[in-house]
Structures are given as C-alpha cells and as structure tokens.
C-alpha cells in the first residue's frame, strides 16, 4: 500500500489548532476551476471569513517571449494568450501596431474585425453562462449553452478556417473575406442562436437558478468603481462603462448608435449573468447590422505583411478594446527593427479578480464557485506578470532563459 504526503503542512496544523476556523484550499486544482487559481479560504462552518487570492500558477512568459519575436510572429503569439478571446488580443495588438505605423485598414476590414469580435462575445458569454450553470449544479444548462456555442464555433470555422484561434487579423486588415453565401449562413445561424438565447434567458429565470444567484457575490457600485472593475462585472454593478462606446475602435465609431450598453444595478451574480444574457441579444443585433451594412472594398493592404512590418517605425502606444470580459489593454513599444521592445498586456481578469475578496467575504462556501464564475475569470490571461516565490516571500521576475532551462529539465 503506497502512501502520499499531505500537500501543505501549514494547513493541516491550522485544522488541528482551531476547530471553529477552517482554512480550506480552493484550488489550484478544483473541479469548479477550469484554470488554476488558488484561493485560501478561511471559513467558520459555511461562512467565509477571509480570502487570500494567489495567482501565478500558469505563468507562461508570453510578454518576454514577444520581445524576442518580430511583429508578425508576435501577432500569432498574442493570439495564444487566451483561447476564448484570441480575436480581442490580436485586434488590440494590431490596432497598436497600425497606430504606430500610420496604417489605415479599409472600412470593410474594420467591419469584418467587428463581426468576428461580436461573434466572439457571443461565444464567450455562452461559455461562461454554461459554466455558471455547471457551478450551481445545473448540468443540463451547461450542456445546452455549450451546445449552442458549437454553432458559433462552426461559424468561425466557416469564416476563418479555425474554430478557436481564428488568426483573422493581420497588420493592415483581415485575412479572410466574407463571401455572400457565408453572409446568408451567418444570418441563418444567428436566428437559431437567438432562439436558443431566448430559451437560455428563460432557464435563468428558473427559481432554483435565481435562488443560487440572487444576493450572491454582491459588489456595490462604489466598490466596483474603487477597484476599477471592468466589463460585464462592472456593468452588473451599475457602472456605465464600455470601451466600444467610450473609446470606439474598429467599426464601432460608425455603429455607435446601433447597440446599447447593458446595465443592471443588482450588483450580484444574477445581475452579472443578466448583463451577459442581454449582451448576447445586443451582439446578435449588431452582427445583423454589420452584415447589412458591410461596405465594399479590399480587406487588406496591397503590400505584403512582411513589407508593412519592416516599415513600422520606433514608437509606443496604448491600445484598448472591449473584450467579452471587459476592458483589455495592450501597451506596445516597437524598436523600429521589426521587433518589440516591450509588450504589456492588462487583461480584464486582472482588474476583476480584485473584486473577488469583497464579493466572497460574508458569503457561503457554496457561493465560491459561482461567484468566481460570475466575473468570468481567465486565469491564463491574467498570469503574465511576475513569479511569486512563496518560500522566500519575495517577488521576482523569472526570465525566459530560466523558464526554458527549467522546462528542459523536466
């Protein structure tokens, strides 16, 4: 009979000393988590007394890696930051490069970017709605949402050739055009998705779902503003912010009046869910508008991407987009020699994760997964900052070479 060592001895000690306070490790490995994040939760019976959030389990060194690549290679690398909102990252990155290089993509290219952007929003929201269902033990809702999401993924495949990493953006435009027969297909699929979204909306009105989501993970308007919460999480607390409206990019300048920013003031998990469901319909309407008003023209620059890349001068800029999870920010500094001097990515999850503490304290253990899911965390996106050495209690940046060396050892 083999035995294994108890993983964290300090946790075991605390259990022995104080029976009323129990520190439970929520993650980094937990069935409710799709990505590793560690919450050290102190509980008394079912009530949460304290939460300690630890990130850094999926640090991949993408920012450092990007600095060793040329701009086009970095574009593909940036796409790999996230598997759910890759288009947001590439749009953000290409916008920055285009701004530095003074490149103006055609209207049609901008519209197509926006189209994929909104499709991505639908797919991301469906994904998290399903996961919220799963976290409250509603497996059928999870299966249904992900079933609907398949339609969106199929559309991605039809349009760009890829289901997940679309590789749609390129410097100066997009890589794939939308022929007329695809427009019809997208329209037909959207009708189907809208019907399913209405059904999902109905299911979320179900009483057992409401009981699990209402008054759970409350984040007041003031707290949301103080902590700079972004995206649907902020809009669920009544903070009216949306990069698409406030700092329009791509085709959103022209489409400004064609969508509204969904606001809810419930400030709980239910409000955040409701914002996402309403945004599904907003996105569907927006895509229909885009399909109707798609301008003619070429989709990319005449020169090849490599030629464009060589002409990008030295410069720096900040680019923002409204990713499905909220405001996504790229700081890009080029070195004028085809490469990057610095890339800094601030993902929405990094902003939103700060809101977890006020949301969780005072709640129940049963609320942890659904509260976590309600901010739609993308841990892989957020872990690109520093490596925290817990043993020596110091924070240091581990370079790419070290990471590589360690990677080889294993």
């Amino acid at each position, binding site marked *: 009979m083999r*035995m*294994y060592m108890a993983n964290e001895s300090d946790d075991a000690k605390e259990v022995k000393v104080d029976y009323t306070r129990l520190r*439970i490790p929520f993650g980094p490995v937990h069935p409710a988590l799709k990505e590793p994040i560690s919450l050290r939760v102190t*509980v008394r019976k079912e009530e949460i007394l304290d939460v300690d959030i630890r990130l850094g389990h999926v640090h991949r060194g993408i920012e450092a890696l990007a600095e060793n690549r040329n701009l086009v290679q970095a574009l593909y690398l940036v796409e790999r930051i996230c598997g759910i909102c890759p288009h947001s990252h590439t749009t953000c990155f290409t916008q920055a490069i285009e701004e530095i290089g003074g490149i103006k993509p055609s209207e049609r290219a901008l519209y197509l970017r926006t189209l994929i952007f909104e499709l991505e929003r639908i797919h991301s929201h469906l994904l998290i709605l399903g996961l919220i269902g799963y976290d*409250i033990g*509603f*497996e059928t809702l999870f299966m*249904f949402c992900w*079933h609907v999401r398949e339609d969106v993924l199929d559309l991605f495949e039809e349009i760009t050739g890829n289901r997940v990493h679309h590789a749609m953006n390129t410097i100066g435009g997009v890589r794939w055009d939308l022929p007329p027969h695809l427009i019809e297909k997208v329209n037909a699929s959207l009708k189907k998705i809208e019907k399913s979204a209405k059904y999902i909306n109905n299911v979320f009105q179900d009483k057992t779902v409401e009981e*699990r989501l209402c008054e759970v993970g409350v984040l007041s308007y003031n707290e949301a503003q103080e902590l700079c919460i972004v995206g649907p999480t902020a809009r669920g607390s009544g903070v009216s912010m949306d990069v698409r409206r406030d700092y329009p990019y791509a085709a959103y300048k022209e489409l400004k009046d064609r969508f509204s920013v969904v606001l809810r003031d419930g400030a709980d998990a239910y409000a955040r869910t409701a914002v996402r469901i309403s945004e599904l319909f907003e996105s569907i309407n927006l895509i229909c508008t885009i399909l109707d008003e798609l301008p003619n023209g070429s989709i990319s620059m005449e020169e090849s991407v490599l030629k464009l890349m060589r002409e990008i001068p030295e410069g720096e800029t900040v680019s923002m987009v409204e990713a499905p999870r909220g405001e996504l920010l790229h700081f890009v500094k080029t070195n004028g020699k085809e490469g990057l001097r610095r890339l800094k990515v601030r993902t929405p999850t990094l902003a939103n994760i700060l809101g977890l503490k006020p949301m969780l304290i005072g709640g129940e253990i049963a609320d942890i997964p659904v509260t976590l899911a309600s901010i739609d965390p993308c841990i892989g996106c957020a872990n690109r900052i520093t490596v925290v050495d817990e043993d020596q209690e110091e924070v240091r940046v581990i370079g790419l070479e070290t990471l590589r060396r360690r990677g080889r050892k294993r």
Partner: protein
Amino acid sequence: MNTIVALLATFPIVFFLSLLFEGIDRKIHARMQKRIGPPIIQPFYDFIKLFNKERIIPVTAASGIFTAVPIIAAAVSILGAAIPVVNLITGTSIVGDLILVLYLLAMSSVMVMIGGSSSGNPYGAIGFSRKMTMIIAYEIPMLISIASLSFNPCSSLAYYDVVATQIRMKSLLAFTRFSMAVAAATFLLCIPAAADAVPFDISEAKTEIIHGSLIEYGGPYLALIKLAKAASNFALAFLAATLFFYVPALFEGYVSLGLGGALCLCLVTALIFMLLTITVPRTIFARLKIGQAFKFYWLIPLTLSMLSVALSIVGL
C-alpha cells in the same frame, strides 16, 4: 437458515440490478441533455476499472476507519436492498423489517460520512457536516412516512404484510387511502436527498466541495462506495414501488402472473420511480444550498408525513 441462504444468493442479483439501474439512469440523463451518454453497462466497467486501481490511503487518515468504512457501507446497503427482494420472493417477513431496511440504508450514508471525516481532508469535514444536516432533514420525514403504515389497521411494519394487503385488496396502497397517498408522496420526495441527487447533492457537491466525503477515496474503496450508493438508490426505488405501488396486485389472476412476472413488474415500476425521483430532478434543477434544502424538507415533507400519521389515526 433458508432465509440467510436466500439472502446471500440475492446479493449478486442486487449487485447486478443496482449497477444496471445506475447505467439506465446515466443513459437517460445524457439523452435528456442531448448527449449520447455512456453505454448502459458503463457502471460495471467503472467498477472493474476502479477495483484494478491501486489503493491509496492518505497519511492524515485514520487508516482503520478509512478502509473499513467502504466495505461496511457496501455490505449494509446491499443487505438493505436484498431484504425486500428476498421477502418478495419467499413471501415471508418478520415484524419490523421495514425499520431494519431503512436503518441499513441510512447506515450506509452515515458510513460514507464517517469515512470522509476520517480522511483528514478539510473538504471531508465539510462534507460530514453537510451530510449530517441533510440526514436530519430527510430521514425524519422518511421514517415517519414508513411508520404511518403501522397506524393503518390492515398493514404493519412487516414488509410482506404491506404487499399482501395490496394483493388482498387488489389495489395499490397509495390509492386505497388518502393517508397512504400522502405517505407515498413524502417517501418519494425524500428519495432524491437520500440518493444524493441534484438538487440535494449538497453533501458531495462536485463544484463546491469536490465530492465532500468521497474526496480522498479512490480505487477499490471508491468502487465499493459507488456500489453502496447504487444499491441504496435501487433499494429506495424498489421500496417505493412495492410498498405503495405494488402493480402486480392490479392484475386479476395474480397467481397466473407467476413470481417472475410479478418481480419483473415491480422492477419496471421501481425503474420508473427511480427515473422520476432521481434522474428527472437531477436534469432539470440546479443544486440548492444547504439552508434552502433543509428548509424545504422541514416545510413540505415533514408536514406531509405528520399529516399522513394524523390521517391514519383518524382512519382516512
């Protein structure tokens, strides 16, 4: 002596039937979710697979209790499921065996709970406290609903007496008297909680406390606990189907039906009840919180069970 031999002979049958029921449950659950689902004999594969895995005992666990618990749980719940089946086949029973069966089934839940708390994992401890609360919530209405059988002039707490009454009256017990209909409703309402099915799977909520008591179990121990759960689910469905809705009693020539026919009818009824009380709720509901579940059980099933006792005493 014969009864003991019959009981032992029934063990493999119960083993087979309970895993088969679980397979059907999983398949239909999957079909309702637009999934293809596992093959119906998947639970057998799982059982064999788990039995061939290594046995892991955490260093923090009280290893004696930790390893004994799955064996006891599997034994008592199979025994609990075998007693009604044997009684139905042999047509005999002893007074009070219904109480014995219910306690054997409760015992298996308690055993799993203890195993979880002996594992030294904090999630096991939370699972323990949640299961404790749930047991208090559902066991009381369940026991009262069974006890109300004895307040009836024509039935008793002996399992076969209740079945014999239904054969004599050529009717289902739940339809003969209003009080029995209420008792049947209570019993059926308690099954999802006893079976740890959504919306009452709070004590082993996968996404909240990582299966609670089961968290440290793996390999053969997990196989035994899974078997214990399957057997107790089967027993509960079988009890509901025979105590309150003994369908073979409806047939004119009861004798011509034969023992096999009667048993098959009972199994089909049991399957239907299992689908209604376990599969359907776990497909269409979200998991409740412990407070909400407790409130539900003490508001509705407890009131209903009291009502059934009161009505039985009045003679309705």
